[in-house]
């Protein structure tokens, strides 16, 4: 269970989160959506303790996150950009993360799934962006963590890897994992998400299922419903200022 209460955060004068309340209680895939700069990554980074909130409470599995680090054992995280120490090999990085977490991991099936065997002994600086992202996927999923956080997971992946990733995410959901996903690719959301959280200007604008969203906006395609919300929002703003 991930609970967020009245979370606020600003960077300088830019108030990114203006009091977010969110509770993800059930297993499944929760997609966090929103336009650029709406605070998706900030929420994710707050959950992981990378960003320190100005106020509000955050807990993962009933453990308060503030100042703690042990709870991260429960989380697998896939960041947007994959960069590693350049002179280590893929195998060494996997070993390192295992070593740091001090847990057993099952990386072999994942390595096979994403076809990483030929790269295991090459140094990371010689790998392409997509291959690095695959390494990242292995690092994220190999621990069998109860919570999985995916921040733009599809960046740089080829279609084959993308399909593998989608089926992997689905399998993890079926095994009762709680998955938090941010993305701008609406097809992915339509395909995967059980629940949608829509952020707008640092607040939660909408929370519900895909069908709720369709009903609210009267659009069938998610892409269009979101576009509709956004244009309506800017129109309202224009009215207020006028």
């Amino acid at each position, binding site marked *: 269970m991930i609970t967020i209460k009245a979370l606020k955060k600003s960077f300088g004068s830019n108030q990114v989160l203006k009091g977010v309340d969110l509770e993800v209680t059930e297993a499944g895939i929760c997609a966090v959506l929103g336009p650029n700069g709406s605070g998706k990554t900030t929420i994710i980074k707050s959950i992981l303790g990378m960003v320190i909130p100005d106020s509000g409470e955050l807990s993962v599995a009933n453990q308060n996150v503030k100042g703690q680090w042990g709870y991260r054992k429960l989380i697998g995280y896939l960041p947007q950009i994959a960069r590693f120490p350049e*002179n280590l090999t893929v195998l*060494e990085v996997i070993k390192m993360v295992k070593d740091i*977490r001090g847990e057993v991991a099952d990386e072999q099936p994942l390595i096979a799934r994403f076809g990483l065997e030929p790269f295991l002994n090459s140094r990371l600086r010689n790998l392409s962006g997509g291959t690095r992202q695959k390494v990242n996927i292995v690092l994220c999923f190999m621990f069998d963590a109860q919570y999985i956080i995916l921040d733009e997971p599809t960046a740089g992946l080829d279609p084959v890897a993308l399909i593998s990733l989608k089926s992997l995410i689905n399998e993890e959901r079926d095994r009762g994992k709680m998955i938090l996903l941010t993305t701008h690719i609406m097809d992915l959301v339509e395909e995967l998400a059980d629940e949608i959280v829509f952020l707008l200007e640092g607040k939660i604008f909408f929370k519900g299922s895909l069908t709720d969203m369709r009903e609210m906006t009267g659009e069938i395609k998610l892409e269009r419903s979101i576009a509709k919300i956004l244009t309506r929002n800017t129109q309202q703003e224009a009215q207020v200022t006028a």
Partner: protein
Amino acid sequence: MFKIFKYSFFDLVRSRWSLIYFLFFAITATALLYLSNDVGRAVTSLMNVIIILCPLIGTMFGVMYYYNSREFVELLLAQPIKRQSILMGQYLGLTVSLFLSFLLGLGLPFIFYGIIGSTSMSNFIVLLLAGGLLTFTFVALAFLIAINNENKIKGFSLAIIVWLFLAVLYDGLFLLSLFMFEEYPLDKFSLIMTVLNPIDLSRILVMLQLDVSAMLGYTGAVFNKFFGTSQGFIISLICGLLWIFAPVGLMLRVARRKDF
């Protein structure tokens, strides 16, 4: 912390730059030793190289390494480990690998020359100590600057300015102020000024050990007169260590509240 240290150390030891840094010192030390054929002189010449180069390399590598490993730090931050340990591990990984290149680069030629067991052995060890202090200090300063500046260009420029100030400008300003206030007693002033610059401290550390009064310079002479050789040595060593602990402590403090 130790795990992070281990991996960033192995990563860095295998980089091309460690080898270049090592080779530079090896070649310089060999050349100076065999050309001058006098350990005392070679140590003095090397000291002049070290007090400029160790800070410069420490600063550059520190800033570069911090910015290059930023995304990797994000990955580590998502693991169940304390953020201060990540930073400390990386700091130690970088400094120890730089220091190792320096140590081997200087050490091997001197060992082949037959330094072990000779009378100049302690001089040589103090030289290594000075280089080590400078490496640890300037990597810490570089990390401190980098962690406070998200903007790479700004961080880089600031780090270079700090190096330039401490390595070059400081002495000029110091001499200028001595010259301008020559009617006043300046002993205490110059003592304080020396303690405030890690590069000066290392220089005095080596000079006090070598006991070459002609090269002590004004500050060194004051130091010598004020504390005597052995006490001066200990005090400059303690100040040198403070120059490591202060920036490292500040760095950890900043890290505690930083948003990554």
